[in-house]
């Protein structure tokens, strides 16, 4: 009986949707996961599309160029709505648009029929486990975390380049607010209470940067991974027709998530490029003027 069950296990490999990307092979100590393979595939697709556009670019656009121009113009309009400044849009658009395309292609590649279904069997603890060769790139926290860290760091660098190191430093470690206690206390006694609060707000801002990384990465990962689980579950209930509507839903979710991630990135870039202390000073000046 035991033999029979072992045989049964070997004949019918189990496939559990894991929360992490499964390793496929090793290159010099680096485990190449199925998600990394898919993101390489996404990279290839994007390079191919870009090359096709570059080679067929012409003043009177063809179909592909038309679509791409439409997407490009629409995306610029969206980023413009966030930044409200064409100069900032021009600077951040390449990175935001690349982010959108990379996430979108990765999300959609994860929905293709061969992703999750083409793979090989591995013997793990006496069980034969099916390991898919491809898994959506964004269904791996390493990918989303990498992108989020990169965006948060890039937004701060952008802030430094736009408004200066001192202002960005003061945003997190508000030495200026602490200094104001000594310089402005004669004119305004309330500064003794306000300045430490401002300093603490700066510390919160610093924590907020970590929160940004967490929220960006887990939102994308969670949505895409949940989509995979949902599709797998629907397929397990009834393989035919039933997953169809959910597949459409996932196409939509993939687009929305790519949009949210890139728009939030543009929001972070815009916030980093704004000088809050100037706004506050202007605000206080206006208040004084109104008094």
């Amino acid at each position, binding site marked *: 009986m035991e033999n029979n069950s072992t045989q049964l296990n070997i004949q019918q490999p189990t496939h559990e949707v894991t*929360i*992490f*990307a499964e390793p496929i092979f090793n290159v010099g*100590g*680096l*485990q190449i*996961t199925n998600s*990394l393979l898919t*993101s*390489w595939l*996404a*990279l290839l697709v*994007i*390079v191919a*599309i*870009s*090359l096709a*556009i*570059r080679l067929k*670019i012409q*003043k009177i656009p063809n179909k592909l*160029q038309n679509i*791409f*121009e439409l997407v*490009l*113009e629409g995306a610029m309009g969206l980023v413009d709505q966030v930044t409200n400044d064409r100069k900032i849009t021009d600077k951040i*658009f*390449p*990175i935001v*648009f*690349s*982010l959108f*395309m*990379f996430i979108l292609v990765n999300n959609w590649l994860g929905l293709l029929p061969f992703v999750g279904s083409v793979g090989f069997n591995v013997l793990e603890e006496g069980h034969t486990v099916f390991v898919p060769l491809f898994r959506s*790139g964004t269904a*791996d*926290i*390493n*990918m989303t*975390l*990498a*992108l989020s*860290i*990169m965006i948060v760091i890039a937004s701060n660098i952008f802030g430094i380049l736009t408004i200066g190191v001192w202002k960005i430093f003061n945003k997190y470690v508000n030495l200026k607010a602490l200094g104001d206690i000594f310089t402005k206390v004669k004119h305004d006694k309330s500064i003794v209470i306000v300045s430490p609060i401002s300093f603490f707000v700066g510390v919160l801002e610093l924590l907020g940067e970590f929160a940004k990384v967490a929220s960006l990465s887990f939102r994308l990962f969670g949505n895409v991974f949940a989509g995979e689980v949902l599709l797998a579950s629907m397929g397990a209930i009834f393989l035919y027709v039933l997953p169809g509507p959910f597949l459409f839903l996932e196409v939509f979710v993939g687009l929305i998530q790519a949009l949210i991630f890139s728009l939030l990135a543009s929001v972070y870039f815009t916030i980093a490029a704004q000088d809050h202390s100037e706004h506050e000073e202007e605000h206080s000046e206006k208040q004084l003027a109104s008094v």
Partner: protein
Amino acid sequence: MQDFINTFHIDWRLMIAQMINFGLVFVALYFLAAKPLRNLIKDRTAEIETGLNDAKTNAILLEQTKREYADALSKARIEAQKVFEEGKKEALVKKETMLNDARAEVSTMIENGKIVLEAEKAKMVNDAKRELASLAILAAQKIIEEKK
């Protein structure tokens, strides 16, 4: 933290690999597609703007030219009318002069003709007289000869 890393299989090398992937996507998308396309769109927009401005200028120019053409045409008509009138007047004057000249010439010719005719007539009469005289002489001679 370790639990978190173990649960999600977080690997910094994979993260760096994904960052490199994104970098490549950025390079490919920006330098191969987005930048040339944006430049192209900018150029096209500039061209269209120039074309529209040119079209506007051309329309204004066309309108102006039409007006100038109409003005020139009407001026030319007036001028032509004037020239025609003057020509007509001049022609009438010339006609009158020519007619007068012709009349004068004709009358001179008639006068001359008359004088020539008179002279001819006188000459003819003289000739006739002379002829008649010679005839009379001849006749008288014949008569005389016959009587002899």
